[in-house]
């Protein structure tokens, strides 16, 4: 009989190794799935993980898609460390895109260099406003933020749909539900010729660095960590629980909102009924796989971005549905959570135990 025995201290080794174990296990599952679907697994792996990043353009796409993921995941990590479960980043992203897009449309054709900064500020404010609702409901009414933040995702999507179908619809858009294309000053400048990579990526890196300073080096970040690990001790030490909730939610909302602006001012360039292929949810996985640590999140966002690109490439080259991406994302998180058991427990074979009793 195999059983788990509590370790006296959490294992540092497994803290770092478990994301790697999870990635390897997910690859093995991928191998099995591809084989079961009658695809040559080597070819499939090549199409999924190598082909998308063989060209400079592909590398640009990798960094482009990693940008919203790292932005959102760093923001979520601040909350998750304090046990503030904001899972509505997708909605906060959408609200950020609406607010930023609103600025872009209001100053349509403007030559001012201030349009883009104003969009980013508006996006952060939009995401924060949307995250403030669950924060307020949690601190004032004790309402579970998991459920409220998720319900707000559906509402945000409907608000965006309303706007692009109605108030903000491009009159020359042949009745398609879309806004006017943003003009030059409302778009993020390109970073690398022959790719779609824009300066949003540098902004994402800067936010990850700021997140590192906040989470690892600041007193406020330390307080949030304590609030998450030992709520009773935090209370005793005078760390305000409502303040922790507010900070966790607002940081997450601001980051997601900025990511939303990055999408509409970047690869999309206008408002559409859908502005994200689920980045807000994928970022939850990125935050966990990255161990809620900015450096880990940076690496995990690249991996998750590759999964998105791999899904598209598999659709083109292997005639596999791109939904395979979602499947891999979920599997990865499952394996991570499963591997994490070895941080706190080790395996013991019970036979030894019985032998000792016999003596």
């Amino acid at each position, binding site marked *: 009989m195999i059983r*788990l025995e*509590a370790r006296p201290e959490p294992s540092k080794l497994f803290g770092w190794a478990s994301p790697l174990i999870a990635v390897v296990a997910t690859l093995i599952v991928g191998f099995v799935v591809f084989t079961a679907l009658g695809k040559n697994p080597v070819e499939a792996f090549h199409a999924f993980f190598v082909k998308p990043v063989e060209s400079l353009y592909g590398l640009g796409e990798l960094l482009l898609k990693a940008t919203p993921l790292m932005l959102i995941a760093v923001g979520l990590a601040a909350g998750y460390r304090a046990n503030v*479960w904001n*899972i509505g980043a997708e909605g906060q992203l959408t609200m950020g895109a609406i607010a930023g897009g609103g600025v872009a449309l209001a100053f349509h054709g403007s030559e001012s260099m201030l349009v883009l900064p104003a969009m980013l500020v508006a996006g952060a404010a939009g995401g924060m406003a949307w995250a403030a*609702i669950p924060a307020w*409901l949690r601190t004032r*009414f*004790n*309402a*579970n933020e*998991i*459920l*409220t933040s*998720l*319900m*707000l995702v*559906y*509402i945000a999507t*409907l*608000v965006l*749909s*309303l706007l692009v*179908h*109605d108030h903000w619809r491009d009159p020359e858009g042949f009745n398609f539900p879309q806004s006017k294309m943003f003009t030059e000053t409302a778009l993020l400048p390109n970073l690398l010729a022959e790719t779609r990579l824009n300066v949003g990526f540098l902004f994402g890196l800067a936010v990850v660095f700021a997140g590192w300073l906040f989470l690892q080096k600041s007193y406020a970040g330390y307080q949030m960590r304590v609030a998450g690990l030992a709520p009773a001790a935090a209370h005793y030490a005078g760390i305000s629980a409502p303040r922790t909730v507010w900070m966790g939610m607002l940081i997450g909302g601001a980051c997601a909102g900025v990511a939303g602006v990055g999408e509409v001012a970047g690869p999309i360039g206008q408002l559409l009924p859908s502005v994200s292929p689920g980045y807000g*949810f994928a970022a*939850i*996985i990125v935050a*966990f796989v990255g161990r809620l640590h900015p450096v880990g999140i940076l690496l995990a966002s690249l991996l998750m971005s590759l999964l998105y690109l791999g899904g598209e490439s598999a659709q083109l080259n292997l005639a596999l*549905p791109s*939904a*395979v*991406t*979602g*499947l*891999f*994302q*979920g*599997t990865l*998180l*499952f394996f991570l*959570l*499963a591997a*994490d*058991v070895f941080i*706190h*427990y080790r395996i013991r074979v019970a036979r030894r135990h019985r032998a000792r009793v016999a003596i």
Partner: protein
Amino acid sequence: MDTLAQLVILTLAAGTPLVYAALGELVTEKAGVLNLGVEGMMLVGAVVAFMVAAKTGSPWAGVVAGTIGGAATSLVFGAIALSLMANQVATGLALSLFGVGLSAFIGLDYVSVVIDGIKAVEIPGLSTIPVVGPILFGHNPLVYLSLALFAAVQWFLYRTRAGLVLRAVGESPQSAHAIGYPVVRIRYLAVMFGGACSGLAGAYLSVALTPLWVEGMTAGRGWIALALVVFATWKPWRVLIGAYLFGGVTLASFQAQALGVAIPAQYLSMLPYAATIVVLAIISRDVVTIRLNAPASLGKPFHSGT
């Protein structure tokens, strides 16, 4: 058929997926396990039910398959959250994300397939009684099944020894373990029951309410079901009332759209989600009631330590 009867029938029809999913989650939570994967299990149930119904031509075979599919999906949660003692919130989230991906993946070839769904059965003589007839006898068989499930859950939890043990495991797993009850095994069964109910809820959606398969067709109903368990302060009869209230809200938004009310459709579609938020806030406000009624060990991993 008169309007009143129609209204009752449609409200119950819209509330039924919530009845199934929320009753299942209620039993899971009574055992002290918080499974946030309801949305994912519902989607897997919906797609499996639809696929089997399309392949065999029998929607009832689909319902059975969807129920089994939901239970099988919940085993993944059980393995990680119960056997490996992972964080239940994170594992449940993973299950929901996984279920969305898995159902989209396996259901791709079935998106435009048409099947014969389960329809309300006309009982000769009874269904034709004016007013009372259609209200009592005009429903889909799965609506009656959900009421039977409600009665069974109520009876099991409060009138049987096994129900008492399950609630004891949810209140104090350490005590239950000390007396000699297999806490983890009981929790597995509760999780699987929740999974089966979620699968059945999804099956009802894809083979009875709207016989078709669309990616993400549950549209957040799994999350609303989770909220319902809190509204109901973990009491089955309040789950039932809450589910039908939400059925009514969903129906109102559909009906208003059909009647051409001069409000954009999006506002009406927001109603169920907005209502969930408002009601959740009102109920949760009473911290004492929540604390008294919530299973004491809800969401906490259990390790026997031996």
